[in-house]
C-alpha cells in the first residue's frame, strides 16, 4: 500500500563538525520519524582533509552523533542513512564510521541488523583511462575541462553520489546505510523516492532538510528538524522549543551557500525552486509547494571533487608599530620578498603576506585603501616542496621585515616585533584541483556497495 506521508528527521547539518544537540533530537525522536538521515560532508573545510585523507571533526563528536541516531533508529526499527562520512566521504572515512557503528552496537547490545556501505572514491587511473578514451571531464563554475596535467597534480578524487546508491541500499534491505561522498540533499530525497513519492517533492525535502535547523529561526545550529512529504507538498517543522520554521527562514535557506537561489543540481537532474510557494501552517511549520525537478537529458553527470598537495607550509607572525614603517608597509614587504627571491631564485616556492590592519581579511576586495591602524600584524605564509625549504622561505620572509631598509627609519635596532623568534609548522597546503562533472552511462558505476550484518551487539 502506498504511503500517504513520510517523516524524516535531520539532527545536524554537518554531523560531527559540532555535536548534535540532544534535547531537540529526542523531542523529534519521540514523534517516531520514519527515517533518520544526516550528512557529514562539506567542501567548506578546504581541500586539506580530502587531499591528506583526514577528518576535521573530532572522532568522539562523530561517534556521539552516530550513537544518537543508531540508538533511536534501531529502537524503532526504521532506516538510518548517513552520507559523506567523516567530512570528506573517502573510503577510509566510511570504514571509520563502520567501525564506530560496531563499537556503538556492542556498547548498547543492539540486535543484529543489516548495514550497507558504499565507497565514492574514484581511482585516478580509472579517470585517466576515461579521459584517454574520449570522456570530457567538464569544469563547473566556469572551470575549463580537466587536463591530464591537472589530474597529475591531484592526490585524491571523490565522486558525489546522487540518490542512486542510497535507493539501491534500501532495496537490498539495509537498516543502516553508511555512504561515501554524496549530495547532502540526495540522502533525504532517496528515502522519499524509495517510498514512492514524486521527484519534485522528494528532491525538495532533501534540499530543505540537509542543513537541519539552519532552515529555522532564530539562528541556532545543530538542532533537529523534521520534514514531512506527501504527494502534494513538503512541510518542515522545527523541533527545538524556541525555534520555528517560518516562511522567511525556509525561503531564506534556499539561498544559503549556493550561487543562485532558484536552482540546485544533482547527479540526474536539477531542482527548480523558482515557483515555490511558502505558507505558515502552524507556529513551528512551513509548507512548500511548486518545486519542480527537471531530470537530465542524456548521460548522467556526476560531480567530482579532487584535491592535490601544493607543498609543505610554515607560518610567520610579525607585529609592526613604527608609524613610518606602517606608512611604507608595501616597501617593507617588497624588501622581505626580495631577500627570499635572492636566496631561492628559480626554485618553486610561494610566499604570501596577509597584512592585518591594512587588508588582511579581504585583500584586493578591500575598499578601504588607507591604513587606519597604529599597529599591523603581518602573517607570512611560505609554501615549498620540502619542510626545510618552506621553513627557510617563511623565516627569511618574516625576519627580513625586521631588517627592512627604509631610508628615514628612526628605529635602527629592528622594525618588527616577534611573538616567537622563529616560524610555525602549518598543515601542508592543498588545492581544489577538481570541481568538475564526469558523464557516465550508469549513475551507479562510480560507487561500490557492500553489505554486512552487524552482530557486535550479541558479543557485547
Amino acid at each position, binding site marked *: 500500500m502506498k504511503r500517504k506521508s513520510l517523516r524524516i528527521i535531520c539532527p545536524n547539518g554537518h554531523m560531527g563538525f559540532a555535536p548534535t544537540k540532544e534535547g531537540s533530537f529526542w523531542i523529534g525522536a519521540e514523534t517516531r520519524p520514519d527515517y533518520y538521515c544526516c550528512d557529514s560532508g562539506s567542501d567548506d573545510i578546504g581541500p586539506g582533509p580530502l587531499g591528506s585523507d583526514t577528518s576535521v571533526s573530532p572522532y568522539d563528536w562523530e561517534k556521539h552523533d552516530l550513537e544518537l541516531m543508531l540508538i533511536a533508529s534501531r529502537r524503532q526499527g526504521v532506516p538510518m542513512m548517513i552520507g559523506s562520512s567523516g567530512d570528506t566521504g573517502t573510503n577510509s572515512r566510511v570504514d571509520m564510521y563502520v567501525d564506530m557503528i560496531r563499537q556503538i552496537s556492542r556498547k548498547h547490545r543492539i540486535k543484529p541488523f543489516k548495514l550497507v556501505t558504499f565507497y565514492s572514491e574514484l581511482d585516478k587511473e580509472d579517470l585517466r583511462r576515461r579521459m584517454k578514451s574520449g570522456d570530457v571531464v567538464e569544469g563547473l*563554475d566556469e572551470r575549463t575541462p580537466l587536463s591530464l596535467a591537472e589530474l597529475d597534480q591531484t592526490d585524491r578524487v571523490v565522486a558525489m553520489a546522487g540518490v542512486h546508491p542510497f535507493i539501491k541500499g534500501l532495496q537490498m534491505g539495509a537498516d543502516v546505510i553508511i555512504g561515501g561522498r554524496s549530495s547532502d540533499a540526495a540522502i533525504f530525497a532517496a528515502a522519499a523516492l524509495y517510498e514512492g513519492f514524486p521527484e519534485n517533492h522528494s528532491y525538495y525535502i532533501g534540499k530543505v532538510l540537509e542543513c537541519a535547523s539552519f532552515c529555522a529561526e532564530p539562528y541556532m545550529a545543530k538542532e533537529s528538524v523534521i520534514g514531512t512529504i506527501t504527494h502534494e507538498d513538503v512541510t518542515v517543522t522545527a523541533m527545538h522549543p524556541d525555534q520555528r520554521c517560518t516562511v522567511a527562514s525556509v525561503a531564506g535557506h534556499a*539561498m544559503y551557500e549556493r*550561487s543562485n537561489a532558484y536552482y540546485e543540481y544533482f547527479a540526474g537532474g536539477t531542482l527548480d525552486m523558482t515557483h515555490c510557494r511558502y505558507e505558515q501552517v502552524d507556529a513551528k511549520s512551513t509548507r512548500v509547494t511548486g518545486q519542480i525537478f527537471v531530470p537530465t537529458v542524456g548521460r548522467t553527470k556526476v560531480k567530482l571533487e579532487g584535491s592535490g598537495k601544493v607543498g609543505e607550509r610554515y607560518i610567520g607572525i610579525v607585529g609592526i608599530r613604527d608609524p613610518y614603517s606602517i606608512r611604507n608597509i608595501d616597501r617593507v614587504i617588497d624588501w622581505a620578498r626580495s631577500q627570499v627571491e635572492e636566496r631561492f631564485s628559480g626554485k618553486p616556492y610561494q610566499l*604570501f603576506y596577509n597584512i592585518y590592519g591594512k587588508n588582511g581579511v579581504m585583500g584586493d*576586495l578591500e575598499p578601504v585603501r588607507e591604513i587606519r591602524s597604529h599597529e599591523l600584524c603581518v602573517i607570512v605564509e611560505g609554501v615549498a616542496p620540502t619542510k626545510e625549504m618552506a621553513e627557510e622561505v617563511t623565516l627569511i620572509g618574516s625576519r627580513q621585515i625586521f631588517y627592512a631598509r627604509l631610508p628615514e627609519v628612526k628605529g635602527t635596532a629592528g622594525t618588527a616585533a616577534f611573538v616567537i623568534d622563529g616560524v610555525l609548522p602549518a598543515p601542508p597546503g592543498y588545492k581544489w584541483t577538481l570541481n568538475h562533472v564526469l558523464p557516465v552511462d550508469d549513475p551507479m558505476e562510480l560507487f561500490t556497495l557492500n553489505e554486512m550484518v552487524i552482530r557486535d551487539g550479541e558479543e557485547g
Partner: protein
Amino acid sequence: MKTKKLIDLAKTIRSKNAGTDKITFDIIFREKENYELVKKSGALTRQTVAALFNIPEERISDFVEFDPAYAIKFTIRRLEPSGSPGDRDIFGCQQYPPLLDIEVPV
C-alpha cells in the same frame, strides 16, 4: 537627497562560500517595503557592487532578486579556489562588511 545605510534597512547581510570557486552574498530584509525600496533605489546592482569591491563585472557570476525571501543575492568568482595557500578567508564569511555602509536613497 536623504539616504539610509543598508545596515539600517536589512535584517541579514552575509557572505559565504558557494562551492569551492565562489563566494555568495545575501542581503535579506524583514519588511517587504525595505526590500522594494532597495531593489528600486539602484544602490545595489551588479554595477555598484563591482565598483565597491573594485572588480570587473564579469567576476559577478549571478545577481538575483529573490522575492519569496525579500532578498537580494549576488555571487563573486574567487581568483583561486577556497583554502588554497594564500586564501585569506577559507569560508568566505567575512567579505560582506563593505556592504553595510552602502547609502540607499530614501
